C-alpha cells in the first residue's frame, strides 16, 4: 500500500538558534520560516516535534543564564519557557549537588502517553515531564542511583563536544521500557519506567578502558530503537557500528561496522533508521583515526546505507562535495521523514542542510551559511 503524501517540516537546531523549514507535499519546494531564527543567539541542542500532538519542544541554553526548555503548541508562533525546567534535586551532599549545564536531548514518551516527554542533560541526568513540557521532574532512579558516578567514570567535559546523556528511547511496545545512551557510561535500560537500571553493553568494544569486558563505561554516540519492529536496536559507538542480537540475558552487540569498507572505517556520530524497514539504516562516517579530526573521511563526505541489517553497506554521495568537504555531522543532526520514498536529512558542522528524497540515492543542499548545526529532526504530517 502506498503511504499518502504528507508535508514535511524540519527543525534545525544550531549554535545560534532554531530554524524551521517547511516542505510542500512533493518536497520540491522548501521555505524557511521567518527572516531570523527562533531563539537567536541561543544554543539549541535539540528541537523535536511530537508526532501526535504537534507540540514542539526545544532544548536551549539561555546564553550564560543556564539551560532551559521551551515549548510551543502553535507550530512555533509563540514559545513558553517551562515553568519548572529540568533541575537536579537540591542536595547537601556534594556528590549529588549537580546543576544542569545543558539540556541536550529530548524524546517524546510512548505513543500511549502523548503528554510525556524525556530530557537528557549534561552532567548526565534524566528528567521526565508528564504535562507536555510545562514542568520537569528528576528521574531519581537514575539521577540518585548510588552507582551513577561509577558508571560515568567521574566528571567530564560538557557538550557539544563532551559528556552527556542522550539517545533516550522508549520501547514502542512497552511504555515502562526505557533505553538511554551515555557518553561516556554506555547503554543502559530500565524495565520499570526508570526506577532501576542495568547496563546493556555486552559485546561492545571500549578500547579506551582497561577491562575489555567491562559492564559499563562505553561510549555510545547514538542509539536508535526501531519505531515499529520489536527488539531492533542499533548504535553508532565510539568503537564502531553495532546491532543488538539475541534475546533476554543473551543479548549482545554485534559489530556490523566490520562490514564497512576498511578505508572508511565505522567511526561516526549519527545513525538513523528507516521508519518501516528494520534492516535499513544510514550512518555518516568520519575520520576517527589518530587525533580524531572529526571531519568527513579524506574531505569526501558520504553516507553509507545498509539494507540488510549491516551485513553490507552502499556508499551514497551523489550530489555531495567530491573533495574539500571538511565537515561532519553531529549525533542528533541526521533524521528521516515518514514519506513513502523516505527522505533523509542531515545538517553539518559547517552550517549546511542536505536532503535526499530518494533514500540517499541523490543529495541536494537545502540551505547554506547557517551557524553550526547541532540537531535535525524531520516530521511528516
Amino acid at each position, binding site marked *: 500500500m502506498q503511504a499518502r503524501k504528507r508535508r514535511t517540516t524540519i527543525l534545525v537546531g544550531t549554535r545560534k538558534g532554531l530554524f524551521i523549514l517547511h516542505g510542500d507535499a512533493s518536497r520540491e519546494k522548501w521555505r524557511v520560516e521567518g527572516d531570523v531564527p527562533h531563539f537567536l543567539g541561543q544554543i539549541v541542542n535539540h528541537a523535536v516535534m511530537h508526532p501526535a500532538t504537534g507540540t514542539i519542544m526545544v532544548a536551549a541554553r*539561555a*546564553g*550564560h*543564564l*543556564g539551560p532551559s526548555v521551551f515549548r510551543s503548541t502553535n507550530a512555533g508562533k509563540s514559545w513558553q*519557557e517551562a*515553568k519548572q*525546567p529540568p*533541575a*537536579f*534535586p*537540591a*542536595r547537601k551532599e556534594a556528590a549529588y*549537588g*549537580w*546543576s*544542569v549545564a545543558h539540556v541536550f536531548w529530548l524524546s517524546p514518551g510512548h505513543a500511549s502517553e502523548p503528554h510525556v516527554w524525556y530530557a537528557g542533560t549534561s552532567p548526565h541526568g534524566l528528567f521526565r515531564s508528564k504535562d507536555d513540557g510545562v514542568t520537569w521532574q528528576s528521574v531519581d532512579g537514575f539521577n540518585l542511583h548510588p552507582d551513577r558516578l561509577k558508571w560515568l567514570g567521574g566528571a567530564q567535559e560538557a557538550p557539544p563536544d563532551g559528556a552527556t546523556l542522550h539517545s533516550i528511547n522508549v520501547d514502542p511496545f512497552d511504555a515502562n521500557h526505557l533505553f538511554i545512551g551515555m557518553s561516556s557510561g554506555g547503554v543502559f535500560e530500565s524495565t520499570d519506567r526508570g526506577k532501576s537500571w542495568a547496563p546493556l553493553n555486552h559485546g561492545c568494544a571500549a578500547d579506551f578502558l582497561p577491562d575489555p569486558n567491562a559492564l559499563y563505561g562505553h561510549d555510545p554516540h547514538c542509539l536508535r530503537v526501531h519505531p515499529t519492529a520489536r527488539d531492533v536496536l542499533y548504535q553508532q559507538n565510539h568503537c564502531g557500528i553495532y546491532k543488538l542480537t539475541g534475546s533476554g540475558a543473551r543479548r549482545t552487540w554485534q559489530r556490523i561496522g566490520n562490514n564497512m569498507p576498511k578505508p572508511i572505517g565505522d567511526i561516526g556520530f549519527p545513525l538513523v533508521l528507516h521508519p518501516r524497514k528494520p534492516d535499513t539504516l544510514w550512518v555518516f562516517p568520519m575520520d576517527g583515526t589518530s587525533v580524531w579530526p572529526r571531519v568527513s573521511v579524506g574531505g569526501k563526505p558520504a553516507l553509507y546505507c545498509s539494507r540488510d541489517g549491516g551485513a553490507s553497506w552502499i556508499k551514497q554521495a551523489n550530489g555531495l562535495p567530491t573533495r574539500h568537504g571538511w565537515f561532519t555531522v553531529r549525533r542528533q543532526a541526521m533524521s528521516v521523514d515518514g514519506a513513502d520514498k523516505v527522505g533523509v536529512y542531515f545538517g553539518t558542522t559547517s552550517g549546511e542542510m542536505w536532503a535526499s528524497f530518494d533514500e540517499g540515492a541523490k543529495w541536494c543542499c537545502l540551505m547554506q551559511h547557517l551557524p553550526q548545526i547541532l540537531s535535525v529532526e524531520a516530521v511528516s504530517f
Partner: protein
Amino acid sequence: MKVLLPTPLGEFTNGLRELEAKGATVDELLHDLNGRFPGIRFRMVDEQNHIRPHIKIFINAELERSLARPLLDDDEVLVVAALSGG
C-alpha cells in the same frame, strides 16, 4: 532598595532594568523578584542554590557571592551577566 538588572534578564521584566525590591538578604531579594517575575531567580541561581558562574551580584559596587549576605534598605544591588567566548 534599588536593583539594576542586565539586559538578558529584561525578557522576564518586560524590559524593566531598574526597579525597587525588598529583602533582608540577597536570597530574600531574589525571591521577591521571582514573585513578581516568575523564573527570573533560576536564571541567576541554580538548583543547588549557587549563583550561576556568569552572574555577578554587586552590593554597593562590592562583589558578593553569598546569598546569605544581609541587605539594608538603602543598599544598591547591581546584577551583571558576564559575557565570554567568541
